[in-house]
């Protein structure tokens, strides 16, 4: 081995060749075939994206050139700029290299192109039409080469031009600078191909003159920002030629359109170019391929959906009859800008975007340049949305091309200069990667490679020294693009004084109002005032809020009631203006600000709770802090409060505060979807348990003191009844209870009543912390009976006097506070009553009658029964009575039925085969839905009683949002209707024992 060869191997390795031995052998063979030596091969390959492939392709090319007599052309390129171009092309695109190998006669092209070849200098349409023997200057060019010959000729001509574009693109030092020109030429080339395809189609269609067909480019082709390889989106529009019949014209046009598409996308000896995709047409793939302009117009006026108008934004005639194309455009463009004024346009555009995102397979998310988070689609969407919002008042924004639109937005002051520049850079870089990936094999791909070797090729092709550096930039871009959507959309709403720098965009009032109204603010004027109040000034607070607000406005906008959300945020911030932790939390926590925005813009209940005790905002940064506290932990806390102080007022205030805090925590977690409504109800009930147990302790101590006793000579318990007993309380429910005591002391009864009254007073008296209403009407004899009853008297009463419904009420009795020993005895006593060995037929009849009467009497006047969540058909009461009937009938035998909780009992009934699983599922669904709805109504906080579904579908939609389901208001109402209808049918069968539904 000579010293020259040793150093060449080293230099090749430095130039990026991994298998130097093979490279050396390839070089040798090339030199042998060409008959000349290569000038400094190491330097040459250092420019190639894939040196090995480049060399191999050069060898194949040399052989092909030799065999076809074009070797001279190849040798002539040696050591010249044209030769370097060829080399770079071979190194970056295997597919175009293969094309040259197939057609070595075009090697001479590299010599023929000017030294400083630029993009956009060639009339593509003319070149491709001439290639198929059509006259480019004719009004209606018809090919002289028809059929497969024409198609092949067109495709070869297309690829020759494509090769030239790629050669210029790849040779460019900074590919991002030429990207817009490349994308534009590619779109022109696609148009030219369709034009030539159409000329070929006409050659086979003798009556082609009867129709005037225009091909409208959509998507990236329409926008003149096409990829190297992607589907070309088109729409066909045709008008009859003068004197021709409409349907004849359409028939011919349809044949022409299909043939022109086939010319581009059918497989053939010269491979297909790309897929022609006409699915954006009216009615999609089910619609007619070609329509008249009137028919297009009628469709868009009547049927088209939001995204279809968005698609029209890019429409541009690219081939066929230019006049018809222009007519089409004139007819359609006003529609786009009218559509923007539709209600919810922005919202439905955003929903569409989310759906697209959800469709990207998870394993591709991280590699998707186009659809993944922070990808091209994000950039395009952000820009399009801004265009749509402001374009109806500012025609200067109505550009098809993404980067032009961005520039127009910047010039118009709708987007900040630095943001625009960042967006522009990111977009170009993403597109350059996409192009380089596609060029390699001329394949439609948008995925970053996984393989190290492929990554290396991509880095070299797009001008990055190392793979690591390229990946770093890729991550930065994705993060930036993701963040910029909210920034670009909402930042400019901040008043000028609040701008972070002079380069920031600032919208005038009208534009700001447009933007706020577009995302759902009802009173944009007021919203602007709040924004100003929050961000003006030089305080640290204002400075941080300026940082936070753009994103927060976006989150408010996603909530049900953006206006109140923003107002509440302003109030909260003013209340907490001196709290350092508050802004720090919002700024630094990943989730607190977003959660706060959601709570404030959906739930009046939570908003009030947070305004009452602003420090609770701290939970929002911490999911664990939002989860309900365990009952033992709350009991310990209550115990500590009671041990610390003897002062009754102080203690009860602290305990009531504790309950308020737990309610707020539960409500926040409920709205945020951290817990469901059934868990929430249990947590609300627990908070009541803790408070009542504490109140009992305080009351006993106070009464003892007043009576001059050390300890009260009685045992005393509180028994939770009704929904409270079932741990199914809602945020605003009263607590149903009864009081029971035991003791031989002569004053036992009066002492017990004093304790009971004191408990009620403690829970109700005026106090800064919210009250808990106690309802003791479910006690024996109701309001006529003593407030507290002794165990002995209760026992006697239940054994002798009670009605079946009282046994039923006892099913929900759950002793919740007081002497453990008495709790046990009481439970044993009532178990005998509520779980009877047999339910007499008379009792069953009485229950059924009572229920039927309740249905007609207890419903409030003027309320549609079907909207009543508790008492309506299939409502909570239907489900609960059915379950309770099963309990009365079978709990004596089936121990699992002995529970105060509806769902537990229902599940136990299924296990014991007392009810079919299907019936139980219907009951369960209706019960859970009604519970969800009641919870949501209470959280929404608009109605006084959360029992009646609102009639307004907008309010229903808000409930759906609080419930974290995707239904529209109407869908929610429909779902409720269905669930209750089914539950009612089960109730009629199982509870009432009716055979059919009448």
């Amino acid at each position, binding site marked *: 081995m000579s010293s020259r060869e040793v150093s060449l191997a080293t230099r090749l390795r430095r130039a990026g060749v991994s298998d130097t031995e093979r490279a050396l052998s390839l070089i040798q063979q090339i030199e042998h075939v060409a008959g000349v030596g290569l000038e400094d091969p190491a330097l040459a390959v250092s420019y190639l994206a894939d040196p090995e492939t480049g060399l191999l392709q050069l060898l194949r090319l040399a052989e092909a050139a030799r065999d076809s007599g074009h070797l001279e052309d190849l040798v002539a390129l040696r050591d010249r700029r044209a030769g370097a171009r060829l080399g770079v092309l071979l190194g970056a695109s295997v597919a175009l290299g293969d094309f040259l190998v197939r057609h070595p006669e075009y090697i001479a092209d590299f010599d023929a192109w000017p030294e400083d070849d630029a993009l956009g200098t060639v009339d593509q349409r003319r070149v491709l039409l001439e290639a198929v023997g059509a006259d480019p200057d004719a009004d209606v060019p018809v090919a002289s080469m028809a059929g497969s010959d024409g198609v092949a000729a067109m495709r070869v001509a297309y690829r020759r031009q494509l090769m030239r574009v790629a050669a210029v693109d790849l040779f460019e030092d900074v590919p991002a600078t030429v990207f817009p020109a490349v994308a534009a030429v590619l779109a022109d080339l696609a148009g030219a191909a369709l034009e030539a395809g159409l000329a070929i189609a006409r050659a086979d269609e003798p009556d082609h003159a009867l129709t005037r067909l225009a091909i409208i480019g959509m998507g990236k082709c329409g926008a003149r920002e096409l990829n190297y390889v992607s589907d070309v989106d088109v729409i066909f529009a045709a008008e009859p030629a003068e004197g021709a019949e409409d349907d004849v014209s359409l028939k011919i046009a349809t044949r022409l359109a299909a043939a022109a598409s086939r010319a581009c996308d059918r497989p053939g000896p010269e491979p297909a170019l790309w897929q022609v995709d006409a699915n954006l047409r009216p009615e999609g793939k*089910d*619609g*007619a391929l070609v329509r008249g302009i009137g028919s297009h*117009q*009628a469709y*868009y*006026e*009547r049927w088209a959906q939001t995204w279809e108008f968005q698609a029209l934004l890019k429409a541009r005639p690219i081939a066929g009859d230019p006049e018809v194309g222009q007519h089409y455009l004139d*007819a359609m463009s006003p*529609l786009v800008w*009218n559509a923007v004024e539709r*209600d*919810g346009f922005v919202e439905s555009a955003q929903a569409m975007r989310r759906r697209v995102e959800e469709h990207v397979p998870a394993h591709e998310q991280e590699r998707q340049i186009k659809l993944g988070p922070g990808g091209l689609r994000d950039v395009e969407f952000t820009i399009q949305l801004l265009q749509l919002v402001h374009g109806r008042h500012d025609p200067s924004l109505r550009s098809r091309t993404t980067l032009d639109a961005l520039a127009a937005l910047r010039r118009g002051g709708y987007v900040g200069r630095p943001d625009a520049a960042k967006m522009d850079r990111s977009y170009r870089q993403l597109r350059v990667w996409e192009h380089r990936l596609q060029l390699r094999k001329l394949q439609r791909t948008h995925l970053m490679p996984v393989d190290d070797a492929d990554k290396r090729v991509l880095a070299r092709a797009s001008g990055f020294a190392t793979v690591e550096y390229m990946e770093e930039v890729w991550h930065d871009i994705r993060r930036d693009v993701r963040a910029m959507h909210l920034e670009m959309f909402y930042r400019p709403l901040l008043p000028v004084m609040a701008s972070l720098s002079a380069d920031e965009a600032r919208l005038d009032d009208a534009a700001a109002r447009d933007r706020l109204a577009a995302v759902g603010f009802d009173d944009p004027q007021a919203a602007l005032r709040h924004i100003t109040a929050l961000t003006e000034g030089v305080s640290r607070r204002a400075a941080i809020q300026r940082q936070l607000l753009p994103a927060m406005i976006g989150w408010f906008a996603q909530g049900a009631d953006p206006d109140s959300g923003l107002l509440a945020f302003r109030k909260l911030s003013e209340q907490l203006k001196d709290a350092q932790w508050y802004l720090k939390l919002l700024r630094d926590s990943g989730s607190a600000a977003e959660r706060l925005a959601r709570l404030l813009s959906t739930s009046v209940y939570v908003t009030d709770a947070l305004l009452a005790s602003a420090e609770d905002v701290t939970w929002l940064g911490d999911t664990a802090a939002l989860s309900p506290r365990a009952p033992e932990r709350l009991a310990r806390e209550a115990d500590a409060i009671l041990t610390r102080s003897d002062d009754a007022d102080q203690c009860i205030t602290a305990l009531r505060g504790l309950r308020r805090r737990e309610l707020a925590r539960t409500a926040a977690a409920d709205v945020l979807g951290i817990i469901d409504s059934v868990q929430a109800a249990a947590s609300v009930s627990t908070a009541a348990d803790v408070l009542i147990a504490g109140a009992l302790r305080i009351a006993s101590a106070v009464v003892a003191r007043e009576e001059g006793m050390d300890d009260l000579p009685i045992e005393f318990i509180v028994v939770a009844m009704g929904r409270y007993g079932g741990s199914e309380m809602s945020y605003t429910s009263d607590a149903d209870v009864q009081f029971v005591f035991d003791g031989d002391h002569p004053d036992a009864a009066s002492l017990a009543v004093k304790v009971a009254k004191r408990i009620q007073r403690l829970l109700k008296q005026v106090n800064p912390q919210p009250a808990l209403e106690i309802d003791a009407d479910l006690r024996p004899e109701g309001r006529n009976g003593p407030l507290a009853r002794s165990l002995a008297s209760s026992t006697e009463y239940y054994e002798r006097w009670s009605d079946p419904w009282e046994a039923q009420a006892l099913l929900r009795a759950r002793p919740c506070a007081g002497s453990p020993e008495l709790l046990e005895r009481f439970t044993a006593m009532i178990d005998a009553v509520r779980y009877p060995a047999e339910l007499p037929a008379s009792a069953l009849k009485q229950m059924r009658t009572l229920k039927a009467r309740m249905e007609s009497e207890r419903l409030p006047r003027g309320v*549609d029964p*079907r909207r009543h969540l508790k008492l309506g058909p299939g409502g909570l009461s239907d489900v609960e009575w059915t379950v309770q009937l099963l309990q009365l009938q079978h709990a004596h035998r089936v121990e699992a039925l002995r529970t105060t909780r509806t769902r537990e009992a229902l599940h136990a009934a299924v296990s014991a085969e007392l009810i079919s699983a299907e019936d139980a599922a219907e009951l369960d669904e209706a019960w859970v839905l009604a519970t969800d709805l009641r919870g949501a109504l209470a959280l929404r906080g608009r109605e006084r009683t959360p029992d009646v579904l609102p*009639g*307004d*579908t*907008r309010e229903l*939609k808000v409930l759906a949002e609080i419930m974290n389901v995707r239904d*529209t*208001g*109407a869908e929610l*109402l*429909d779902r*409720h*209707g*269905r669930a209750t*209808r089914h539950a009612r*049918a089960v109730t009629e069968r199982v509870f009432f024992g009716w055979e*059919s*539904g*009448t």
Partner: protein
Amino acid sequence: MDKQQEYVLRSVEERDIRFIRLWFTDVLGILKSVAIAPAELENAFSEGIGFDGSAVEGLTRVYEADMLAKPDPSTFQILPWRGAEHGVARMFCDISTPDGEPALSDPRQVLKRNLDRASDLGFTFYTHPEIEFYLLEKPQPGELPKPVDKAGYFDNVPRGTAHNFRREAITMLESMGISVEFSHHEAGPGQNEIDLRYADALTMADNIMTFRTVIKEVALEQGVFASFMPKPLADGPGSGMHTHMSLFEGDRNAFYEAGADHQLSPVARQFMAGLLQYAPEISAITNQYVNSYKRLWGGAEAPSFVCWGSNNRSALVRIPIHKPGKGQSTRVEYRAMDSAANPYLAFSVLLSAGLKGIEEGLELPDGAEDDVWNLSPAERKAMGYQALPSSLSQAIEVMERSELVAETLGERVFDFVLRNKRAEWQAYRAQVTPYELEQYLPVL
């Protein structure tokens, strides 16, 4: 403002229209109308006209409900019977809630929703009804209805009222853009039939609503009275609305398969199987009045039993004889429906029953070749021919338990229809009829 709306505004101005009637339909299929002045039109397009939406709930409405009526500009028509000068025009409306969601209680929206569902499966639904009705002399209180002539099936009555009437009516229908395919004298005295040329189901339902109004108006002009009552004469045939249906996939008739039995594709067979399976549950929609069941069970050619046949005039579902080379016109005919049905809801349940058949891949039972009326009950039982409900009460009972109908109509409309129908049955049951008086009073 889109082009179509602009067109309407321009026409209103050029034609000197003084009032625009906004039409909508209640759950019973009764046409309702709000008249607005031209000045309000622009607002009606952009915002809708607010009204008490409970008007669509039929006779049992209870609670008021704010709704918006938004005219559909593509349905703009000048009402020809209101004269050329200072004319009156109409548009059908879509009813929506104040936040712009389609109102679940609007029958037109019910049909739209079901057509959307079909379109999600790639189908367009076409219908073509044969509408029968009676021409009667102006009704006098307490008297039985008197037909205007005594002619029969396809009779040509020289200078007959009916003849003139049909010519006049058809001219008026055509002037309103409704194409008539066929018209003739029907079997009963004074009974006429007019067939509308097939159209997509929504357009057709709109057309039927217009048709009924036009027929009534023309009758009034000619001093007679037209009625779509299902069975006005105890001893005459009832007025049905046999409806031909087909599904298209794009431009292709999905019911047609060359060379198959009756040229029926598997889709058509499953669609028919669905119709047969669900016919009893949808009866209270396709035959919605107490009176409807007097037609259904009044013999003649009324289909009372669930079966199908080709060219069998007693079958519920019939395959019209196929003409060679007319693949596009392959269709199935549902013969139970009567002229008083709410076309929006009736088309909805028919479509839905058929689609269910397709979705569930139901098997089509064997066709019936005999006249089902001439079979004995035992024979019918043995051959598996189920009967349709024999009264409104029975129909309600069956429908009440129908998931298909509830799903198709949506819970709201389902509820409204049930309430209305129960109330109607109650009211009917409370009657003491002349028949009873005649039969019982003298002897009991």
